[in-house]
């Protein structure tokens, strides 16, 4: 055992949570150490080679607005990018990129290596050093002791990880990396409640052995796109994905071999995610479906490996081979890596404060898949928040908790720490009550100020952001006071877009509120002095067109905030609160909500309990005043 040095913050793990945590803590000025099992697998994507999608894509932009790196990195390393849901409303649009896995890792590693205050080391943490329920540091298996009062654990699916393929099973992290056993054991000894989850991944096949002529091409968008508000260079040579389908014969093979699947052989297994089912699950649960989609996604530019999205499985390898033979285009496909399921320990997330610090051990944080989530974006979101808060604790600054109306990140963390989860948690747009406010197009407007206050946004970017804000405000103000007269010329333009003729003069903003009118039309009728940037025009259009709905949402937010602002002191003794239902009492003791708002979201705490809690808090406050 030797003293390997002192830091403000130590991050265990360098996956998607770990890298954002380390970068955030370092940027805030905390002396930070990142420890990972394997320096060659930083920000590794063990499952699908893609970033973003509905809700998740918005999270990537939120991370970017807070000064995180996922967006910038994927902007530099994707092989294609798409804007999804373009035919729907602005609230649900989102970007998704297919990643070049190797480039993504390289780029992220480079960013980390160049980050001031951040030290990167290879090493397996064997033990958390704890004194009097306060974290003091970590010890690696090579007996190096690193000391810090803040430690963030981001060990993903490595804790007691177990890989399952057919009847083969062995202890392992994803992609045959070494699992972490001792950490799980120590957390249990410390009294943490762990839960067993599982997830899976499909086989990768050799691109040369795919007959693409039997599949449908899935290209990226022709328009250049980017997640990050800082990206100025766009990738133009994109690589397509391909779409094919399983068929009746595929399903027959799976059905016949179901007992051979690790997940269906009858053994008790951890809970798997419903939204990421194996092909076995799909066949069993939806046996009336004649076919299922299979997307073929290249894993990068300089590799032949293709990810077979839709065929996640834990069937034996020879069955995997057999079922590929029934899928058009994959008849002769060679498996380069077999699909597998992985089981792992996760920390029950109601044991965390909304800062992601554990309630049991001061200074100990957990973030990412260890908290029962799934997805790179969900992991990165927790990582950046844990990094921000661990650094805040180290540097004696205010913690940052985002609420449900500010960001999907807020929804994610509030759900986790308030409600917990009984399956790997994935963000969906429907989890957000204020979806219309949490758009991908306004992530910067929502969070850049916060990122700047955290000193994670450069002055240059902040100035640019403020310019954008001003331009939006000015243009909205202009349209709200510019009156359009029904001249012949204007009537013609309106007729051209299929609108009904103007009877009188109309405010430009009111004209824009008509369903058939877009900002482009307004621009033709009342042009601006200078051409406005596209993202400014977009904001103006959304703001005016959906004003009614946005106002409604904002009113709800205001109502919610009132309850969020009623804080519950940490020392509250729920046994003393007269009249609380027993179930509510138990739940409140478990979750220890910070505010009445958070308390009201706990399942089992009903409105009467909330009222009683309010009365109790008022009583406490008044007696305090009278004692002083």
């Amino acid at each position: 055992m030797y003293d390997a040095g002192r830091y403000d913050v130590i991050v265990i793990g360098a996956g998607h949570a770990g890298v954002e945590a380390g970068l955030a803590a370092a940027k805030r000025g905390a002396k930070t150490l990142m420890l990972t099992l394997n320096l060659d697998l930083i920000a590794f994507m063990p499952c699908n080679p893609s970033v973003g999608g509905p809700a998740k894509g918005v999270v990537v932009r939120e991370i970017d607005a807070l000064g995180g790196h996922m967006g910038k990195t994927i902007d530099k390393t994707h092989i294609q990018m798409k804007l999804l849901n373009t035919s729907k409303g602005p609230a649900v649009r989102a970007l998704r990129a297919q990643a070049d896995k190797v480039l993504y890792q390289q780029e992220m590693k480079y960013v980390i290596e160049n980050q001031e205050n951040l030290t990167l080391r290879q090493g397996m943490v064997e033990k958390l050093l704890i004194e009097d329920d306060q974290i003091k540091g970590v010890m690696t298996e090579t007996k190096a002791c690193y000391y810090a009062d803040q430690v963030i654990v981001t060990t993903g699916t490595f804790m007691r990880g177990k890989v399952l393929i057919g009847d083969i099973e062995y202890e392992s992290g994803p992609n045959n990396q070494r699992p972490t056993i001792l950490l799980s054991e120590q957390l249990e000894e410390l009294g943490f409640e762990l839960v067993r989850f599982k997830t899976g991944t499909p086989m990768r096949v050799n691109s040369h052995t795919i007959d693409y002529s039997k599949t449908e091409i899935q290209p990226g968008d022709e328009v250049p796109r980017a997640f990050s508000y800082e990206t100025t260079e766009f990738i133009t040579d994109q690589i397509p994905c391909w779409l094919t389908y399983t068929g009746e014969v595929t399903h027959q093979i799976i059905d016949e071999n179901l007992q051979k699947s690790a997940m269906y052989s009858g053994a008790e297994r951890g809970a798997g995610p419903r939204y990421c089912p194996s092909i076995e699950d799909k066949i069993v649960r939806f046996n009336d479906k004649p076919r299922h989609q299979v997307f073929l996604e290249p894993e990068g530019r300089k590799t032949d490996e293709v990810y077979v999205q839709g065929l996640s499985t834990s069937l034996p390898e020879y069955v995997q081979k057999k079922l590929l033979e029934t899928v058009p285009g994959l008849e002769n496909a060679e498996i380069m890596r077999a699909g597998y399921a992985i089981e792992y320990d996760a920390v029950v997330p109601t044991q965390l404060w909304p800062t992601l610090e554990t309630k049991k051990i001061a200074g100990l944080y957990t973030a990412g898949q260890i908290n029962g989530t799934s997805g790179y974006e969900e992991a990165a979101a927790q990582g950046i928040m844990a990094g921000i808060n661990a650094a805040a604790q180290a540097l004696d600054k205010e913690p940052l908790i985002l609420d449900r109306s500010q960001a999907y990140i807020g929804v994610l963390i509030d759900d986790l720490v308030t409600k917990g989860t009984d399956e790997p948690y994935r963000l969906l747009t429907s989890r957000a009550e204020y979806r219309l406010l949490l758009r991908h197009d306004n992530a910067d407007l929502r969070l850049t100020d916060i990122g700047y206050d955290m000193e994670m946004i450069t002055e240059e970017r902040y100035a640019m952001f403020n310019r954008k804000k001003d331009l939006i405000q000015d243009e909205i103000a202009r349209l709200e006071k510019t009156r359009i007269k029904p001249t012949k010329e204007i009537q013609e333009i309106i007729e051209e877009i299929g609108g009904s003729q103007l009877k009188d003069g109309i405010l430009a903003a009111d004209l824009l509120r008509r369903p058939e009118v877009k900002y482009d039309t307004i621009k033709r009728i009342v042009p601006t002095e200078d051409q406005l940037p596209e993202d400014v025009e977009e904001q103006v259009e959304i703001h005016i067109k959906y004003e009614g709905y946005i106002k409604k949402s904002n009113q709800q937010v205001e109502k919610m905030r009132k309850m969020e602002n009623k804080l519950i002191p940490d020392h509250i003794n729920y046994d003393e609160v007269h009249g609380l239902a027993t179930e509510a009492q138990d739940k409140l003791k478990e979750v220890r909500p910070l505010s009445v708002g958070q308390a009201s979201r706990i399942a089992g705490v009903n409105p009467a309990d909330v009222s009683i809690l309010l009365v109790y808090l008022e009583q406490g406050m008044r007696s305090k005043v009278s004692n002083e």
Partner: protein
Amino acid sequence: MEQDTIAAISTPVGEGAIAIVRLSGEEAFTIANRLFQTKDFQQVDSHTIHYGKLVDPKTNELVEEVMVSVMRGPKTFTREDIIEINCHGGMVSVNRVLQLALREGARLAEPGEFTKRAFLNGRIDLSQAEAVMDLIRSKTDRAMSVALKQMDGRLSSLIRDLRQQLIETVAHVEVNIDYPEYDDVEEMTHTVLTDKTTYVKTEVEKLLQTAKQGKILREGIGTAIIGKPNVGKSSLMNILAHENKAIVTEIPGTTRDVIEEYVNVRGVPLRLIDTAGIRETEDIVEKIGVERSRQALQEADLILLVLNGNESFTEEDAALFEAAKDMDFIAIVNKSDLEMKLDLDQVRQAAGDAPVITTSLIHEQGIDELESAIGDTFFDGSIDSGDLTYVSNVRHIQLLEQAETALQDALEAMENDMPLDLVQIDITRTWELLGEIIGEDVNDSLIDQLFSQFCLGK
């Protein structure tokens, strides 16, 4: 903290001489102003009481004449602005007033909420905090058990069915959003969603309609006996009352001096309207004038039209049939003990689908037939409540009215070509509102639905 305005009936349930609807909160005065168009309670002195006519702002219909107490915060029970509307006793009028207050923007108070506010606003002494908490608990428990009792099994299964349809629709919209490349489901369209929304709205409106019918059931079927003088109206009245033990309730101090008698005919509650008029003068028209008798007819749900079998069909009789023609009525040909001079075919023709009963009220003949005809009219669905799912609880009515508004908003948004994910906000809201009626937890059920309805994954 909660700045919204709450309302509730603050007198005990049951028949009292007066009943009070109390409003507390920032908007108490403005809501009251909307209900009493001629008054501005913002301008009157605090702690004063005012006479006023309460008008339904939607229909401009006079609801009742009432007394209104105006108390400006903070010198009030809750320390907020308070309005107390003193209505006539009986659940009908006070419920109506409460419903109007809710429709105009008040929220139905939670059990014990006035007391809670009084406490939170510092009006109630600290030592009473525990009593306040107990009060909330016990009132909530009681309200819950009452609500459960009131909940008709048919109503909850109907609502459950509507919610299921809504959530399937919402899940469909959601799957389009969260899984844009999933090709097993058609893209939800405005047309499909409009149809679905319109259907649910119709059902919700039907339920609200039954709220009225439920009222009839509880309050009795307003029954008017009409006929020329001396055909036997008072005999009919007396027989119905005598046979069925009438309960006479005097409603004092209203615009009209009416005595209503409640009788229960084979399980069908009848409220005999303006019987005083009939009794004293044998002629409703004579007693209260043509206008008033028309009004009496309008208020009636059932008309008993009495004819004299011993006389031929007159123009007056024809006029009575004309007045009753759009309503539920039963034609009674009385005095069958005397020579039949009335052309029964003519009567049947005039009556159309309505039953024609022959009686001799003096000899108490034909009463059974009449009573079973009333029962038939009632259970046949012509007064539609034989198999009636009806809504009676004020809270349920308020929630249904809000659901109706949300559905209307959704339909309007679709007309304006708003994107479905925005339209969906109001549809989800409807689903939540209906859930509140049957006390169903909203947590996560949408996501459960999403994954059981569709096969999703990577």
